[in-house]
Every structure is written in C-alpha cells, then in structure tokens.
C-alpha cells in the first residue's frame, strides 16, 4: 500500500492521452463496506456481546470457585527468625520455625505449593535487568559487560556465578510440609522438579560444559548473599543443580508485581496423597533464611489447586459478568431511545 500511494503517476510516454485511468481505485470508487450503525446492527451487537460475556463470566466464576487455596503468612509466626535476620551479620545462623494449619476439606487434584512475597519489588527496572542470560546459558562470557553490576565480581576479580541482583537475592527459605495423621507425622512428598517452564529448564538455562559441575564453576564464586555455591543448590539431583535448578530458574523469572507468588513444590500424588491433600492438620517446617523486614515485606506459603482458568482469582469472571450486564443494559437503553426517536424523526432511520 505504501508503495502504491507514494509512487506518483509517472507520465507515460506511450500513453497519448493524459486522461487518468478510470479504475475503481484511482477514482476512489472501490466497493466498500460502510459500517452503518443501523438499529438492528447496534442492538444485536450489544445483546450478543452481553449474552456472550455473561455466559463466559458465569463459567469463569464457577471454575474459580472450585479452586481450593490456603495461604499462610508466616512472617509473624516466625518473628524470632525474622528478628534474627534483620541483622545481616547473622546470615549464617540457622533458624527454623514451624507453622500449623488445618485443612477443613480435601484438596483434590494437583496441589501446588507456592511461596509468596509481599512488597518485594522484583519488577524494579534495575533489578529486572540485573542478570546475564548468556552466563545462564552456560556460555563463558565476560559478565563485566552485562547489566549485572554491582553483582559481577568480587573485589579480587572473581566473577560471581550467577551474577546479578536477581540471582543474588534468591529466595532461600526451605519449606517442608508434614501431615499430622493421628499423632503420627508424615512428610508430604513434594516434587522439586518440573515446576519451571520446560523451555526454561531445557533451553534457556544451561550449565557450563564440563565433566562435573564443580569444575564447571571453578574460578567463580557464589553471590554474596548465598550460603552455598550454585553447584550445590541441589546436591541430590545432578539435573537439578547449578543453573538448571528449578528453584533458581523460577526465581529468575521475575515477577510482574511487588506482591507475588512463585511455585515452590508440587505435591507428589502417591499413597494417601494420590488424590491431593486430604483434610486434616498439617505443619510447615520452615528454615527461615530470607529477610523481609528490611523492605517491610511479608512471606507466605500457599497451597492451591489449579483449574483451566488459572487460580482462585475471581476477577476475570466477575469482570465478564459485569461487562456483559453493562452491554445488555446499554442494549435496552438504546432500544428505548430508538423507539422514542422513531416517533420523532423518521426520515433517516430506515
């Protein structure tokens, strides 16, 4: 189109007459659909939209209501630990706390365990960019050039692996879930892999190539806030260690909002947990490492099931219902207006 319009008519030598072509395009007589806001079109559009939105909204609300979710704020319950963490010099002191809760009904289906953070501005511009994707791909790159600063190297020049503020501030609480069944405590089996996107795990994050992981990261150092180097993130599972550690990958996918949750574990559906979590008393055993008081943040642990329409957030359904209603109402109003109008002026509305 651009070309068509910008090329001005070149006077053809061969054409004896300068009479312009009588083509539909040049004479601006292309057959056109002229959207006429006739009453039928208008009303049908409003009512159809209304009906559609209402039905979608109802479906969404129903499905959102089927989601079971429990969210526990443990920043207060582990106040001792949080006080300890306030002082950064105690970073290597361990602190544990446990949180009890009761499931009143079964959580059926896949149960996901999230940790939630509040007021943590992971979406801060300089935080978001403070990473080196190339390093995480296992390439040997000069991270000095990347946006990782100031978390690139130590003073002595040892590069950090992984570099950048995101990696440095990785969430490092460990949370275990115990099922208290008749005074016996059963640890709920949790899956720590398969939580991240497949593409992240298999394409976007790669460990440096070497015969073993520790040698791959030789010459690098852990980020300052970390307690252990990256190749010790998961000592049990070789395929979940280093950069391809699921927890790490999930953390590296920065959240959109200051209050967010990240998938931490999935309940492994075996034995009595084959159908999900049965109702009863549970306990979280939390190794409290991640300080949140500094930024007035809070920490949650969340158990939730998932449906096709996402989580328990009913907003979308409600929004659909509301807009559907609005559209239908507008339709009625327009009908009324039209009926009134038709009596008054008749000459143009046909």
């Amino acid at each position: 189109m651009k070309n068509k319009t910008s090329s001005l008519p070149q006077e053809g030598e061969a054409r004896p007459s300068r009479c312009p072509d009588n083509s539909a395009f040049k004479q601006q007589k292309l057959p056109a659909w002229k959207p006429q806001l006739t009453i039928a079109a208008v009303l049908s559009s409003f009512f159809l939209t209304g009906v559609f939105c209402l039905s979608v909204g109802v479906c969404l609300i129903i499905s959102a209501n089927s989601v079971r979710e429990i969210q526990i704020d443990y920043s207060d319950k582990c106040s001792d630990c949080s006080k300890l963490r306030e002082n950064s010099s105690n970073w290597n002191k361990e602190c544990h706390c446990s949180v009890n809760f009761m499931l009143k009904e079964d959580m059926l289906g896949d149960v996901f365990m999230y940790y939630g953070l509040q007021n943590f501005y992971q979406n801060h511009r300089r935080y978001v960019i403070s990473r080196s994707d190339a390093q995480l791909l296992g390439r040997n790159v000069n991270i000095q050039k990347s946006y990782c600063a100031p978390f690139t190297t130590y003073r002595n020049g040892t590069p950090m692996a992984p570099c950048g503020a995101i990696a440095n501030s990785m969430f490092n609480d460990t949370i275990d879930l115990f099922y208290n069944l008749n005074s016996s405590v059963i640890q709920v089996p949790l899956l720590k892999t398969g939580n991240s996107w497949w593409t992240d795990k298999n394409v976007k994050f790669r460990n440096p190539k070497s015969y073993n992981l520790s040698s791959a990261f030789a010459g690098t150092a852990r980020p300052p806030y970390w307690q252990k180097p990256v190749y010790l993130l998961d000592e049990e599972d070789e395929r979940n260690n280093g950069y391809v550690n699921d927890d790490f990958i999930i953390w590296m996918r920065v959240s959109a909002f200051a209050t967010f949750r990240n998938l931490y574990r999935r309940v492994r559906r075996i034995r009595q947990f084959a159908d999900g979590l049965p109702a009863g008393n549970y306990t979280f055993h939390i190794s409290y490492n991640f300080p949140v008081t500094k930024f007035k943040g809070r920490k949650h642990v969340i158990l939730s099931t998932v449906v096709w329409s996402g989580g328990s957030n009913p907003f979308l359904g409600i929004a659909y219902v509301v807009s559907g209603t609005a559209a239908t109402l507008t339709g009625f109003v327009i009908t009324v207006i039209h009926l009134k109008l038709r009596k008054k002026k008749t000459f143009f509305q046909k």
Partner: protein
Amino acid sequence: MADPIRWARYRWQRLISTEGREGSSSNSSNKCYQSSKTTGKHRIVIPCLGHFKEEYEKVSKLYMNNQIRTTKYTLLNFLPRNLFEQFHRVANLYFLFLVVLNWVPLVEAFQKEITMLPLVVVLTIIAVKDGLEDYSKYKMDKQINNLLTKVYSRKEKKYIDECWKNVNVGDFIRLSRNEIIPADMVLLYSSDLDGICYIETAGLDGETNLKQRQVVRGYSEQVSEIDPEKFSSRIECESPNNDLSRFQGFVEHSNKDRVGLSKENLLLRGCTVRNTEAVVGIVVYAGHETKAMLNNSGPHYKRSKLERKVNTDILWCVLLLILMCLTGAIGHGIWLSRYSEIPFFNIPEPDGKSIPPTLAGFNMFWTMIILLQVLIPVSLYVSIEIVKLGQIYLIQNDIDFYHEKTDSTIQCRALNIAEDLGQIQYIFSDKTGTLTENKMVFRRCSIAGQEYCHEENAKRLESYQEMDSEDEDSADHQCGSLTHRSKWRGHDCRAVNKPLNRRSLNQLSGSYPALVREDGEGDVPHSGHVAFSSPIETDVVPDTQLLEKFSQISSRSYQQSEEAGRKLSLETTYITDFFLALAICNTVVVSVPNQPRQKMRQSSLGRMPIKSLEEIRQMFQRLSVRRLSSSPLPSVKESSSESPNSFVSKLSIFRMKLASPALDGAAQRAAECHSTDSPEDSQVPQELDTVNVAAGCEHNSAVSSIELSPLPKLCYEAESPDEAALVHAARAYKCILQSRTPDQVTVDFAGLGSLTFQLLHILPFDSVRKRMSVVVRHPISNKVLVYTKGADSVMMDLLRTASEGTNNSEMEQKKIKERTQKHLDDYARRGLRTLCIAKKVMSDAEYAEWLNHHFLAETSIDNREALLLESAVRLETELTLLGATGIEDRLQEGVPDTIQALRKAGIKIWMLTGDKRETAVNIAYACKLLEPDDRIFTLKSQSRDACALVMSKILEGIQKNTSASKKTSRKLGSVSPSPSTRAPGFSAGLVIDGRTLEHVLHDSLQNIFLELTEKCRAVVCCQATPLQKSIVVRLVRNKLKAMTLAVGDGANDVSMIQVADTGVGISGQEGMQAVMASDFAISQFRHLKKLLLVHGHWCYTRLTNMVLYFFYKNVAYVNLLFWYQFFCGFSGTSMTDYWILILFNLLFTSVPPIVYGVLDKDVPAEILMQLPQLYMTSQKSVAYLPSPFWITLLDAFYQSLVCFFVPYFTYCGSDIDIFSFGNPINTAALFIILFHLLIECKSVTWIHTVVIVGSILLYFVFTLAFGATCKTHNPPSNPYWIMEKHMTDPVFYLVCLLTTCVALLPRYLLRVLQGTLFLSPVLRAKHLDRLTPKEQREAIKRWEDDCIVNCRVEFQATSGSSSSATGAVSEEESIASVLPTSKAPLQACSRHGLVEDTSFLPDIQDESGTTNGLNSEKNIFLNSAKETNSDTFGSNNSCAKVSMCASEEGSGAVSLAHKAGLNSVLCEEDALMHFTKSECCLKPKSSNC
C-alpha cells in the same frame, strides 16, 4: 516550528554557495553570483578569440560554464548533508536527544541501540526518498549536460559539436531550426533577411506563441554569416538576474561605438529556435546563471494550517509527557524514601552506596522521558507525508478533472497542503480566463459614433454555445464556408497542444527542455498549437450594414460618385482607418501553417521562385534599400518599377482616401485629419488618381484573385487574445493582415491589394499606459500615422480637444466621442471588453522631433523604462477617435453553478479584476457572484477620509438593517421577486475600484473595510493592479486569519496566487506563469467545485482523523507503560519487550492509519457535490477543534486504563512474570488500536481489510518467531517462549477479548449515539448514501429547505434598502459640495465620495425586456440630472459640481428606487456613469482654464 532553524539553514546555504561557487543548492532561489569584487554591477563578455585571449582568461574564470547541477547531494556529501537537513525537523532533534540521553548510564531506560531504531528508520525512509529524487535529477542533468550543440572552435576554425556542459561564456554558438538554445546568448546573426529569429518559449513559460528576437543592431545588415574570428567587440551587460523580461547592456565595438542591447537581442536557454534556418550568438550567461535557471526556484513548500495545528497539539503532548515524567520522578522519590535502608531489589551504585531519593527521582525523570518517548509520535510526520502523497496521487488521478479539449488534468504542485483545500473561507478569483474562457470574440463595434451590432455574429455565438460542449469541429464545418479557414487547424492545433505535466514543469523551469523534444515532437518541424485560434475566435460574421459601407469603399475607389455625402465619406475614412488600425496596431505574428511558422513575406516576393543565393541577396538588398529610404515618394517609384500590383493598389487606396474630402469641398475635415500635411499631398494624388483609375481596376481584380487564395492559410499568433480577436475581425472585413516583419506590415485591404506600411515603431502595451500604439508610414500619403488602441478610461483623455472656438469638425468629433462613450458604456454593461481605437497624423518634423527624444530614451541604460514611458506618453496625445470595439469573453462552462455551490459551502468569493467596473459587475451577475436581489454598495471615493466616512455610513446602515424588525423583512420579501429557493434575507455586494482600493488598503481603513466586507456576500474589486490583488489577499489572510484561495490564470495573478494560502492556477491561454506559481493547476474553473467540495473535504477529514488517531494511538499505548510505573516503584520498568514496544508503532500499527488517511471516505463524492453545505464542517475544522482532541485523549486514557487493569486484576497475586504480564496487554492493545480504527473508518474496502488483518498476522508471526528464537537476545528483556505459552492458555484469550470489548465499548457507544441522537450533517449525509436514488433526491431537497430555514434564522432578514444609507449619501455629498474647490480636479475632489445603494434588477440577462420598461424613467432622470449638472457647472468649479451632480443623482436614484420598488439599478448605474463621464470631461477643461 522550525522557522529560525530554516532561516539559519538558508543563511548557511548561501554562505556555502558563495564561498565555493560550486553552489550545490543552485536551484534555491536567485543568488548573486558575482560579488562586487569581480565585475561590479556589470558583466563583460568577450569572445575567446584573437587579441582578447588574455583578458578572456582573466574574465571567464569568474563565470560559470554551462554545466548544470540541480542535485542537492553528491555521493560524498549525501549522508552528512541529508542528515543535516533532516535534523532541522524538531521532532527528529527530539528523538536524537532521546538517543543521546539513553547513552547516559544513569538514566538509560532501554538498551542503547533500540532507542535509535525509530529514528534510524524514519531517517532512512526520508533519506531514501531524497536520494531517489536526487538521483533522477542527476540523470536528467547528465542527459542535458551531454546534449550536443555547435560551438565555434578556435583551433579548427569552424563550428564543431560540443556538449552543452562545455559551453562557456564568450563562445559562439550556431543553432539551426528547431534546436534548443543551450545558454543565454546575444543574437548576432540570423539567416532571416531581416535579422529576426523566432523562438518558442514554451519550455520556459508555457506560452506557445512565437517570440521575435532581433539581431543586435549593426549586425543585421551583414549579408553573410558572422565570422567569429572577426568579432572584435566586447559585450557589457547586467550581472545574471532572474528577470526574464529584462536584459540591458551594450556591445562596444573596437572603435568604442556602443550599441544598446535589450531583451529583444537575447536568446534564452531552454527556448527553441523556430522558423529560422540558422542563428549565431555569443553566450553571455551560461549554466546556472542563465535566466531560465535563475527562475527555477524549484518546488515551494507551504505549511498547511492543519500541520501548524498538529504542531501545537504535539506541544500539548510534550506537556503531557512532562507531567507523566514528573509524576514518575516524584513517585520514585517518595517510593524510595519510604525505605529506611536499601532494599536489595534496589541495586546500589557500584560503590556500594545508594543515591538519595531526590537525585534518584531526578534521574528517573529522564528515564521516564526515554521510556514514554513514544507519546511524541515520531512516525506521525512520516505518516502525514505519506498520506499526503497518497491523497495527491488520488487527486491527480481523478478523472473528473480531466479536460478533454486541452488533454490536461489537474496538477498538484505543492504536495503538502492538500488538506487546506478543505478549509477555504475566501476565494479570490481573477475574472478573465478564470471565470471566463478567455476566448475573445469580436462582438460589436462602433465606428465614428455609429454602432454596428453584428447580429449575425451574435447568432453564430449562440449556436456555438450549444455546440461548444459537443464538438467544436462540427461548428467548424458550419462556419467554414463563411470564412477562409481551412479545417486543419481545428484538428491539429488542439490535438498537439501539449499540456503541462509533471515532467514539463521541470522543463519549464529551464533545466530539462531538450528531452521533451526528443520525446516525440523533435522530428516534427513544427506542430505547436496556435494560441487563440479556436474557430469561435477566428470566425467573425461581418455586420451587413458595415459590410455594405465597406464595400462602398472599394467601389468608390474606381467609381467616383459625386453625390456621395460628406458624412458618408467622412465615415468611410473612419472605417478605413478603423480597420487598418485593427489590423496593424498589434504585435501579431503571421505564419503559414503548411510551412509552419514561416512568416509570410510580401506576397510579390514570396511567390517568386528563389533559385540561388545570389537572388536572395539581391532581393535582400532591394529590400534594405527600400527600408532605408526616407524621401517622400521613392517607395512609390520603386514599387512601380518592381511590381505594378502594389503600385496600383497603393494608388487606389490613396486616392480613395483623399478624394472624398477634396470633392466635398469640406476641407476642414481633411485639415483635421492631416492638419500638418503639406498641401502638395492633396494635389498630387488627385492627378494620380485620374490617371490610374482604369489600370487600378484591372489589376485589382487580378491581385485580389491571386492574393486571396493563400488567405485561409494564414495563422495569426498573438500575444493576447484581444489582439487576435481584432485581427480576425478585421480579416472578416477583408482587411487582412498579410505579413509582419520588424519594419513593415502588409495589409491586404478589401481586395484592393496589399498595402505595405513601413513600421516605424511599436510602443508596446503596458499596464500603466493601458494602451499600445504603432507608428507607421502610410505607403501612399507617406505620412506618419500613429494608431493607438487602449482602454477607454485612458484614451478618452488623450483625444484632441477643441483648441479654438467651435469648429464644425470639432463638433463632429465631440459628437462622435459622446456617442462612442455611450456605446462603450453599453458594451461594458453587456459585459464586453471595450477598446478604443484612435489615430493621429504626424508631420515629418513632429515625428523627427519625437524620434530624437525617443532614441535618447532607448539608448539610455539607467533610467530607460521611465524615459520610454515618458516618450510614449508624449507621442500618444491629440488623438482622433476612430471608434470602439466590444469583445466578448464568454463565461466558462459551469461557472455560475460552481460559484453558487461554493457560496453555499460558506465560502466568500471575491472577484479581483483589472477590468472596468461595469464589465466586472456584469460578469459578476452573469456568474451569479452577485444576485439580482443583492444590494450593491459601490465604493468610489477620491480620498481616504471620504472613503472612511462612506464605509462607516454603509456599515451603520447595514447594522440598522440587520437589527430591523422581522415585519419589514417580510414586507420586503413579498415585494422582492426573488426566487423561492433563496431566502429573502439580507445580502449585499460590494464593488470597489482600484483607486478607492488604494485608500481602503491603507492601515487606518483596513479594519473598517474588512468589517464591511464581512457583511457582504461578494466583493468585486475592479481595475485592480496585480499588486493590489496580492495586498487584498494578504490583508484578508492576515487580518481575518482566514484561509484564502486565489485562483487566476495570468501573469497578473501570480502575486496573488503566491500570497494566498492556496494558490490555484488555471492553465488557460495566457501562458503558464500562474500555473508555475500555483499549488494546484486546473484547466477549468468549474473543477474548483470538486477540488474543494470533495477532495478538500476528504483530504481534510482524512488527515485530521488520521492525526487524531495517531495521537490517540500513542497516548493509549504509552499510558500502558505509565500505569505500570505505579506497580514497580516508578522505576521505569517496561513490561513489554523493548523490541516489540518499538516495533509496535513502527510496524504493527503504522500502515492501517496511513490507509485510513488515504482512502477513508466519510461521504460519497456525489453527495458532497450535491450538498455543498457539508463543506462547512471541514471549513470550520469541526473535526479538529480542541474538543475532539481532548475527547480523543480522554478516550485514549480510558482505553489504556482498561487495557492495563483488566490484565492486572486478572493476574494480580499470581505467579505471572513480568513479560508474560506484558504480553496480553500488548496483544489487547493491538486489537484495541486496530479495531478502534475500524470503528472510526467510514468505509472499509478490501485494502483496509488486508492491511488490518495483515497487521494482526504480522504481530503474531513476529512475536511467535521472536519468542521461539531469542534465547538470549541482547539483555535485559527476554520474551522467550512467552507468546507460545500464552497461545495455549485460554485465560490469555479471555483477557484479550474482555479487554478489547470493554475498551472499545464507550467509543462504539459514542458513535452509536452520534448516529441516532446527535446526528451531525456529515453523518446525515452518510445515511443518504444508503437510500435509493429517488429517496436520496427527496432527502437532499428536504435538507436544502431545512438549510434555508436555518439561514433565515441566522441572517435576521433585513428591511428594505436604504433610508439610512441614503442619509449617509446625501450627508456626505453635501459635505463635499460645501467644500471649497480648487483648480486641479483630481486633487480638488479630495473630499468626495460616492456611495450607491441599490437593489438590482431581478433579471439582468433579460435586458431587452426589462430595460425597455425602465428606459423612460431613466431618461427623464438622466435629463434632470444633467440639468442640475449644468447648473452647477456654470456657477461653480469642477469638483463641486461633480459632487453635486453625484449627490443629486444619488438621492434621485434612491427616491426613484423607492418608487420603482426594486428596479433602480440601471438608473443608478447610469447616474454613476454619467458622473464618471462628467468627471472625465471636466479634467481637460479645467486644465485648459
């Protein structure tokens, strides 16, 4: 916006070009090439030959050679220079600033490289466009530079082929027929015997008629071709300048003799040599210094009103941007200060510390500016440009603008003001050639006070009127038998007429003349169109009465009738002279068609078979001898020896002329005519007469039979159509202009044979004198005769007045003058163009004396123009009035209709013309500019004060009228015979003449004048000079802040066209100057209707809608980012990948608005044409008032809110990551923005569909591909696999759907409500489109009635004319008459003004009917007026009585008007005319006293 910068750039260019004379921007206006250090005011040209060699080397270095370069760039400087030019656009600078800003690490928001992308893309597009344009120019230049021409080579001692580019100043160039002149050169030799060369200047100014050029005096007598080796003169002339019509200088021979040079000696680059076998000239200006090149100012750029408005809105956007950035900065500061210690998501500086919140906020401000930069639409300018190109393309291709007869269509010369066409409030129109056809048709004439109506001629014209539209050629057949016209002209001339086109614009400007010739016409020796030669102009049916009288002349020549009355004989003389004057007093070139433009030699010579060069030489010598002879009778002798034919014919006419007075014994008549004649003259012929009667008779018939046969082949090429019309008229009476050379004119008179007049002088027409004269020596009486023709206003003052007592012939003269004046007034009233023809007989002594003075004037260099003028004025006195002619200039097809439509569209139309008042007013009526029931105010004051007084009185009157009660208006309505279609509202017209205009345009009166004109429906300015026209336009444009359009066709309209916002040129018969200066060139006035009503409306609405949409789009999109800042601590994060962010504007949503801007059609063309009222919406810029702008912005805010917050609440608290959150927002935004466009579109064609669907597909393809491939593209953003993931997620679709629906709902609702409740006219018109044709017609009619009702309400109709205005008149006049008066009438009448207050005749066309009824009254009235006049005459001096008369007439007229109801106009008119006349009469009187 960029004016200071432009200025700076201009200065810079000038600097560059004067330093390195290479002057790459050579097409930019005229520069002074030679500064004073070289040659001062003059340039010296010397040939590079012989003894001049040394000086030549010295001088020629300073001059340019003939190589031209119109390109702006070279390969080397293209990039820097183009960039330099592009960065003059403020928007580009802004984006450059952003790019630079992004390199500051502290504030960087994007990756450094990405910010550059939009800028680079925009710059590249423009650079490529410029580069291509420049390249085509380069190719053209090269072609031209390599054209061959014959240049004299010193080495080889002959003319050799040389490229144009190698031609230097001082070179001798030899050109053959039909070759193009490569540089400006002084003509030194022409193969033509008279030293004449004809050139066709079509390549320069588009005028197809031939121009004569003359060999430099002194060289023309040379028999052989000039030998460059022997040329030993130096030429001194002006420095190069761009004035095509001026060239001054002299040739200094080796003996220090100087010969003056004028433009007659200069051959201009780009013109074509015609009719002349070979010419030789010496180059004086070459290359860029040629006049043609200096005139080539290149395309001009105007900035449209809309664009200016867009700029202010962009400023609003900047303000908005700053506001948003400030919000971000403050927000960031506050957010940071909430934390007592650094949170670890806030990255410390490299030194481990964190910057204080205030500083961080400050930095954030700049970051935000980078982030939100898209708010200022960088692509807007590019898009606007592209859209304008598209619109222009469509305008140019509109088949309705195609005019078959001239095979021309519209040309848009200014590419960027198409939308101004939609906002025109004032149209300033020329009359001649613009409203009229400029085909001058001889209608009537008055000779010696006797009128000849030419009824048959009128009938013929009427029959033409009908057939004109079908086929002129058929009419041709009809009339062909009546006149000596062969048919070829009808076919060929028009067919070959090559209209201007885009290419030839370039040629016209002088740079590419040669190529066009090559294109096709080159081989044909001549096939040019002969201007002013359509059959309607050439055919004149003679008036039977006059023809009878005329035939008596020829019969009387041998049938001496004793009883012929004195009166008749006197009349005969008059008639003879009259037609001689018609035939001679002009500058018409005669050519023969089948030997194209070979001028006709004297027939006796021309028919001689020329065998050898020797014979030619002999002939030439003979001729020159005769030319130089000055003794009284040698020519007779010689011609007798040469050919008996001419001798006899001369004798016969001579005898005829003088016999009658002698026989009558009324010697006074002869004495009057030949007052200074020596007595011998009257005796000699008588003898000759008797001797030769018999011989004359015989030979006559022979001659006529021979000479009549070539008649049909004569082609007249005139400079002005009037001239052509007169020559053709003379031809119809068998007074045929046979040939014209610089020193003789041959006229074949009434079958009496050829008369060869020795042409002594031509005093050409100029607008100051308003007349032209020729001085000839009569071949028989051998007296010097001056024939003058000119406007009656000036001519009447130049007539001979009684010097002593009341001589009989004096009385006769006076009578003739009075009668002729009456006829003239009558002609003017009929809308005819009038010319007075007069003659004067000079004695040799008188002539010699005058000649002396004239020669002095001619040879002076410095003050030549003024001296020549003075000399001319000295000659043109004491004239004897012969008669007057009335030439009709018919209205163009469809003019009244167009004017009515434009008027309905709310456009005020002014007519600015140089014609006299009566003609102008009549044309104004004919073309419905003024309507019968309009009240006409005529402003005609001699002084400024009077003018002011009159105007304020009129205004007062109007105001009183407007506030008058409705009752009176109704009363008037019932009285007035106005057609039912028009509301009987108040409407007034203002007529003002040139002299009054002068006063009115003075600073102190401007305001009141404008106030007055605003009250008037139409304004007619007559007798306005070109300068006044432009001043008027500028006044309205600047003071009223109105959009003006000037339309004209001639050179006199150029200044007005240039001043107006939009200049429209009509490519008519008067050359191409107007077209060259215009922004749009059309071939017919009626095309203006579609141009404005349809294309103007479309272009304007399209562009405004597109611009608004652009703002909407950017605001809506950028706000998404802004809202996100509230959730990321105002840290400047973008939730969309940067690439997608940038490409969103550049790629995904850029084409649909362009298509929308080019193709959208709110109302179909037919309805726009039928309902001109619709134009008002665009005229008042309804679509682009502040309110739509802000509504659009509000809507944009709303939509961005929806588009952001629906996904926000949906994903709030979930584990969504930042780019996955951005993706649905972005996608929804795309849909919203594109569907918004769809809602706004008034018509959706397949192109729209393709583009919109294509955009959506492109977006998805791009994001999918991007998401699949970029594992780690340049950090930090990383949309890897996000789109893919979302495509499988139903929530994504649901979110997009809901967002799109909710966001567009209000806009949709708004449109729905507009379509039902608040229907705008445009929408109503749109509805019409759906109706069946019949319903449509009814609806339109209903609409018009509606509109009239509205009008009625609007213009509170007014009461009957006048009482107040009358009061004003009489009051004013009484003041004037009381004033003491002095001698000189002009100054004395300082305080006298005349206002007329009239309501016009209902039907001016039906003159015969209505006028008759009125006549009686009128006459009585006139008589009474005369009486009063004469009373005062006796008692008082000139001024007082004039004003008195005027006042009497004025009040008389008014009272009469009351009596007669409405039909007082004519009386009024006459009163005024009488007034003018009396004024005229008085002037010479008083000077005598």
